[in-house]
């Protein structure tokens, strides 16, 4: 199975995955990266740089909010939570993404 390299993933898609991950509860950046990796059986991974850029961008857009807390191993870390606005955006964009993916899939599988 081909690994989807980070530079093939659109910014929007990264944002979408981050939001979805946070639906499962507040996390810090490292935890989000691990979750996405594990959740896709290591197929989807992207540079951590892109992840942190996405997180800060999402916070500025008020899709997520953050606060400093303490991690499992007693270290100070920044925890992110999804907001109401973020949930709405997730819903809207994931259905758009699914429609797009289905359409592309249909075209690719069409009889030539």
């Amino acid at each position, binding site marked *: 199975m081909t690994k989807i390299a980070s530079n093939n993933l659109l910014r929007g898609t990264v944002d979408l995955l981050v939001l979805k991950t946070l639906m499962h509860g507040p996390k810090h950046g490292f935890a989000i990266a691990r979750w996405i990796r594990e959740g896709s059986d290591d197929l989807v991974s992207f*540079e*951590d*740089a892109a992840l942190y850029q996405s997180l800060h*961008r999402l*916070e*500025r857009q008020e899709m997520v909010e953050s606060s400093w807390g303490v991690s499992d191993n007693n270290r100070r870390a920044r925890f992110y939570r999804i907001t109401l606005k973020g949930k709405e955006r997730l819903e809207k964009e994931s259905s758009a993404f699914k429609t797009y993916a289905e359409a592309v899939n249909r075209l690719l599988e069409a009889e030539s």
Partner: protein
Amino acid sequence: MPGDPEPGREVDLELEFHLQMRTKELVASGMDPARARRQAEAEFGDIENTRQYCRAERRRLRRNRQWKNLLRTVRDEVILVFRRMGRRPAASVAPVAILTVAVTLNALVLSVVRGVLLSPLPFSDAERVAVVEEVQEGGGVLGAAYPILSEWRTQARLLESSAGFLDTEFPLMTRSGPMMVEGAAVTAGFFDLLSDPLSRGRTFTEAEHSVGGTPVVIISDGFWQRVFGEDPDIIGTRLEVDGRVCEIIGVVQERSVFPDGSQIWLPVEQASPGLLEVPGAKIFSTRARVRPGVGLDQVGEELGRISAGIVGGAPSAGAVPLSERLLGNVQTPLRLLQGAVLLVLLAAAVNAGGLLLARGIRRRAETALRISLGAGSSRVASSLLLEGLVLGAAAGVIGVVLARVLLGPTLALVPVDLPRAAQISLDPWVVCLALALACVTGVATAAVSAFAGSRTSPATLLRDSTPAAGSSPWLARTMEGMVVVQVALAVILTAGAGLLLRSFVSTIQEDPGFDAGNVVLVNVSLPDYRYVDQASRVAFARGLLERAPEIQGAQAVALGRNLPISGSTMMSPLRVEGSSDVTSAVQVAAVTEDYFQVLRIPFLEGTGFQGEDRENGERLLVVDPGIVTPEGATLGVGGRAHSFFNDQDYRTVRGVVGAVRHRGLRVNPVPIVYEPFLQKGGALGFTLLIRSEAPVGVVAAQAREMIQALDPALPVEEVSTMSSRISASLAEPRFYTVALTLFGVLAVLLALAGCQASLAHRVEARRREIGIRMALGATLPSVRGMVLTRGLVLTAVGIGFGVLAAIPGTRVLEAQLYGVSLGDPLTYGGVLLLLLAAGALASDGPARRAARQDPAEVLKEG
């Protein structure tokens, strides 16, 4: 949150956390720590770039949050202000009302100034457009003759374009009958001078600018709306103008209308072909656009050179910038008006400010509470300023609405010949400026009380019990200072008003040299295509003259041209028999025999034409006493002279009449010579004068009937009276006098109210002192006297400052004054008395209240 890392380091810490976690993971799977760290860093990607990016995002986030907080604070404050004002709305009514009146006046003046001085002129590149004319000795100004215009157009290299026009009236035939319409006969290139004049259609072609050209006409937008109901097929419709059926080829939009008031335009070659040949007909007003960088003196020189070689051309021409000619006379008085109305705004602001200050003093307890609960003094101050802003905004909105309502009546007062008067309106520019002015004024009004509010010390305030006691001496002095300012402003404005009033009175007391009462004037305009020769014109005039005495109550009737105070000047030098040279130019009028009777111009010597006003009659003249030959001899009865209007032979002077103020009440009489109207061939345009005691409407109707009986196709003419003409000539000084008087009265009322409020506050603040005095034996009159004295002292100080300011301030009025000097003692004496009386009146109420106190009560309060 406390405990968070500082903003500069947050991102670094976060990224560092990630790297350390990954490193630990790798170490846990057996990697060497140093290598694990390098691996983690490599996996991360571009750390530095990410750091910058995240920092930037955080900065934006922080800024957004700050902005939101600010808006929320402002919103809270606004709600607070409204709630506070809502609890006691009555307290806000007075300041808003005062400011509203001032804003309304300012908005009205702004629309006038904007329309007249600031609205763009209809010419493209207006700053390069000049008026070209020939200035005569004696003050008359001549235009150019048609042949000259053509030469200028083709030869002048310094001009980009030029054209001439005649501002005139045209008889039209419409479905509802004949009507006269203002318009212009223009030469080729006229519309090129204007900027984008047409809303539809096209301008005249060169072919149409010729005597045999296809009859065409261009109409204005307003005309199209009024007469044709905005018919979309207007282009190509026919219109009968001056007996010719013309095709409408274009519509001019309202903002491009030039000359002012025009509704139709025709090529002059079609409208008045007869004028084209006459070299001496220097009647075309000329406008020219000058090439960039060319000076107007050069233009004058070049044009003079070109015209010098042509018969009838003047050896020199003058070019004057358009704006100067158009607006020169009105700039100063309008700026004056603007300045005066701003002074009214200032007075209103100070007055309202005093009200707010007094209210702030009464609200001190609340303010002290707010401060002690943690609101910073700047928060209190900004809250008060915000309140001022709200008051100002309210005054602004109401004021603008009121101004819109009052715009109509104001325009009725505005002098009719004010240039660009059609452009006066409450346009968005004026509205925005008025609102901005109102808001700024509102804030300024609150400034003093905001400053005072922020200085309140909670401890002192919470201790005090009486409402006004303990207001610091600073506050009392400030309030009194505000009264002084208001009085001073009132002095300036009333001094100005007084000077203008006296000028106006001096003007109307001037003897015009004739009796304007009961004289009805009917203008008659004969179309030249039906009254081609002199005989027909004289026949019409004679017919009218014969019937006119039958008008009800007619005591005398006459016909005449170039009447006094009509604005038309026709000047010519006279050649006097026996004199080596011609006299300087005199006014020439053509009148019938009974003219002097109608206007009751007295004969100083000799008699009038006495029946000689006919073709074969004796050649006569009547003169006034002011005609002097170059040798210094006065022309009198028996002398012989002639003008240069179609006259080569001498006429004998039969009579000398009293001088007449021909140009207006404020202008000294110019020498006039009267020629016999009928003998000189009548005219196409003249006036019928009727002295009658019957009502004007009756006289007018009968006169019109007679004119219609003589020629049914003549359009209905404008009827006026001599007194209304004189009144109209005074429209400008009247306008400024009324305006400034209104401002003066307002300022005095404001000063009165402000003085009273300040004294009342003072009485309230000093209740204990007054009570003690009364207990110790001070009589009621002496208590009242104390208050009165204070009031008069304040007023006197205000008058002092006011007079000092008025002296340089009224200098700008100098050009508007007539028969009165700038430092007129009568005016200033009046102002002094008026304001002292106002001060005394203002003291009355507070004085009584002071005297009414019961000393026992006051002392009990402790």
